[in-house]
């Protein structure tokens, strides 16, 4: 038994299964026929903490042996991979042909492509603000019954039948197990680097990010963070309350031009300080940012906010004020272009006057007041019972989601009771 198969401290009571290929995966699922058995597909186990606490589970379906790059058609900028390949392994192989997959996620040495897609993992590298699902052009999925199905294919444009892959990106493995994916790829920028700007106010950070999106700069990634996160990650940055990191890339002349635009723009901010990191230093910085939610204690609380760029302004301020008011440390990282935010709060100490459950519910309220949505990703296991980490989904959509779940997994074999719920299955 590996630690990675423990979910909220619970180990599988029937065993571990390591399928080597799609056929084996299919056989495994079709052979599990006893009613009530629960199977949890597992990739690198970097995001297994997300979801409601299961009372028990039967089989850990570990896909780490399905880890091959099946085909890389570099002349066509496409590839096909097995779902258990790690992001690190895939990107290394693609790099040999000066290409990459515009998807990233924390702990790429462990995180698998399948798990990254299934858990809709956050990442900072968003080519032209595209979502990771936009890189998927085909998918093979094994249904809970063991049936192998596919949609799409290794071509970049396709409207043949329903776009079934969409259901499985962010589906947390509740409708089927992703076994193979076709992706479209992106050429590696010839030059990369990061421009750092420190601000003394949140106002400066937000204004500058709006200006960037109004300019002709096309960041490969852009993030803003507060002082607590800068300290937590031990980033060697200009002294500031808020730091913005803009990763740019391209051919040399285009790269220089973007750098000039940024330097000119920042000149208008009197309280700002800047720095520039060449590719290697820039890569190291982005690795820290990417993995930041893993730097805290196991007992910490992490979450993710879905919003719009302008709503993030109020939300950031309100959450920051509240957490400061109750004397805790909030580390935040925003992606202004995408309208999302990641946060990390150390667990409320036992002697605190504010109870932890009060705090997470109050933060939920603050998000709602700012027309935003919070999904708590990490909560100490004892918090999980009775609190819905996922937040509320509108009733109309939830009805269809329940119907989909009933249709594809009527026995609730996959990940029962963990998704979009705090107790019963959706």
């Amino acid at each position, binding site marked *: 038994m590996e630690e990675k198969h423990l979910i909220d401290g619970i180990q599988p009571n029937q065993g571990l299964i390591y399928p080597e290929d799609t056929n084996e995966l299919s056989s495994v699922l079709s052979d599990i026929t006893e009613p009530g058995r629960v199977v949890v597909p597992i990739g690198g186990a970097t995001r297994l903490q997300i979801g409601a606490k299961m009372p028990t589970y039967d089989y850990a379906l570990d896909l780490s042996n399905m880890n091959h790059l099946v085909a890389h*058609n570099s002349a066509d900028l496409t590839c096909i991979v097995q779902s258990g390949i790690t992001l690190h392994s895939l990107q290394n192989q693609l790099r040999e042909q000066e290409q990459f997959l515009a998807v990233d996620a924390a702990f790429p040495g462990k995180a698998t492509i399948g798990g990254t897609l299934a858990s809709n993992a956050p990442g900072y590298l968003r080519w032209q603000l595209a979502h990771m699902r936009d890189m998927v052009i085909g998918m093979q999925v094994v249904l809970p019954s063991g049936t192998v199905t596919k949609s799409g294919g290794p071509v970049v444009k396709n409207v043949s039948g329903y776009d079934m892959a969409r259901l499985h990106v962010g589906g947390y493995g509740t409708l089927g197990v992703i076994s193979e994916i076709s992706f479209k790829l992106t050429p590696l920028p010839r030059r990369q680097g990061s421009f750092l700007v420190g601000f003394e106010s949140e106002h400066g950070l937000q204004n500058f990010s709006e200006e960037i999106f109004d300019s002709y700069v096309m960041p490969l990634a852009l993030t803003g963070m507060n002082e607590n996160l800068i300290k937590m990650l031990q980033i060697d940055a200009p002294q500031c309350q808020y730091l913005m990191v803009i990763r740019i890339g391209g051919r040399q002349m285009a790269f220089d031009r973007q750098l000039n635009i940024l330097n000119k723009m920042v000149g208008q901010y009197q309280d700002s300080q800047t720095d520039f990191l060449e590719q290697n230093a820039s890569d190291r910085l982005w690795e820290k940012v990417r993995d930041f939610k893993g730097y805290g204690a196991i007992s910490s609380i992490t979450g993710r906010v879905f919003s719009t760029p302008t709503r993030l302004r109020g939300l950031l301020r309100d959450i920051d004020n509240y957490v400061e008011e109750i004397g805790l440390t909030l580390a935040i990282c925003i992606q202004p272009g995408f309208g999302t935010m990641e946060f990390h709060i150390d667990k409320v100490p036992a002697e605190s006057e504010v109870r932890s459950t009060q705090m997470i519910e109050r933060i939920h309220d603050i998000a709602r007041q700012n027309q935003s949505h919070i999904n708590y990703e990490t909560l100490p296991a004892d918090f999980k019972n009775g609190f819905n980490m996922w937040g509320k989904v509108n009733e109309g959509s939830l009805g269809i989601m329940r119907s989909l779940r009933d249709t594809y997994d009527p026995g609730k074999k996959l990940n029962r009771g963990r998704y979009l719920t705090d107790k019963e299955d959706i």
Partner: protein
Amino acid sequence: MGQSQSLKIKDLIPELRKIVGDDYVLDDQADLLVYEYDGSIDRGNPVVVVLPDTAKKISQVLKLARSNSIPVVARGAGTGLSGGAIAEHGGIVLSMARMNQILEVNRSDRYAIVEPGVVNLDLSTHVASEGLYYAPDPSSQRACTIGGNIAENSGGPHCLAYGVTTNHVLGMEVVLADGTITWFGENERDGIGYDLRGITIGSEGTLAIVTKISVRLLRLPEHVKTMLMSFETIEDASAAVTGIIGAGMVPAALEMMDHFCIKAAEGAVGAGYPEGAGAVLLVELDGLLESVEEESEEIEAICREFSPLEIRVATDSLEREKLWSGRKGVLGALGRLAPNYYLVDGTIPRTKLVEVLKKINEISERSGYPIANLLHAGDGNLHPSILFDERKPGDVENILAIGAEILRICVDSGGVLSGEHGIGLEKQDQMPLMFSEEDMATMSLLRLAFETEDLLNPGKVFPTGAGCGDISQARAIARVGPGAYI
């Protein structure tokens, strides 16, 4: 469509008038004629057309239809090329023509909320003064609606760099088959739960009726450069495309036209294409000035490896529009070469362009039917257009068989049945070429999860049962109306 269905709907017309208003229910035969067809070969007769202006009214119509087991087909501008908007089983056609308002433009958050009947180009025109645009640009963008684009997940020449409709829709208000009004996604770029937004896009109106759409808006580029490259043969042009993509270049658009298209476009609009060329490439780059200039130099260098007859760069916006006018007008211009054409839509891996175009040429020579090749070459999206005369006995049967053969070649080369026109009625019986029984059953289950009555656009996407190309052909021939312009 049975007579009983027709009588049942006639009985409901007073109720439909009550819901949408007297002026917005059409049941006169003369009025219904224009709703019989779309841009494809197919025909179907609705019993009644209603033109609602709110989601609430659509909900009421759907509840009424459901309680009487009447099919409902949503319709945008009717420019679709696969029969998606055809009332194959009669029933009610729900025209979105009155739901044509741009409801909100949020410049800071870069989105707009529009009704489904908004014409695609109108949105870009509306937001141009803000320095923004809506990226998907189907060739029919002057007429087609954003609601229709969602049904078909439409593309366009510029989706090579910017993606198709699904990559630009943030959320949408929908009416489900039971009349429930809800949102799938909203204005955020990400969220939790199954991606109902994504699965609904491209579902050809079979899962829900879309009533409001939140779309991403992009910043207009600083610089645009359009180049026309002509080659002696289509093989040279294809090899140049493969070379460009293989070198890791992704222009904003990379279009190809063969000598038939060049001739037709020149005759119709005088775009300045060299008539003696075997093929031309229309390449557009956009972005930062420096980036565009560097990339265009590299593309020129790649193309020179394939002995171009000419490389021409548009010097101003007028010249750029002229070059594009030939591309955008070429389908209409094919009428100069033959009374009818049958446009096929398939996608292949871009490395297979030379091989597949060679096979299409062999089919043309063997069958005696000229095939004009128009391609979104950068995507590997082929549009071979078979020229024929429907008045000649046997021509319709022959060209449908040729179309099926071309699609088989696309699938055999690792490609797919449709790049941007959808399956609709046209290709439903060819689905088994690409999908196993299990694949299609899994898709059917999706439909059932949304609605169990099979009343939203029934008879589309899935094979009719036989899964046989011949039956598909016979059905297509039966549907083609007299004088149909394919």
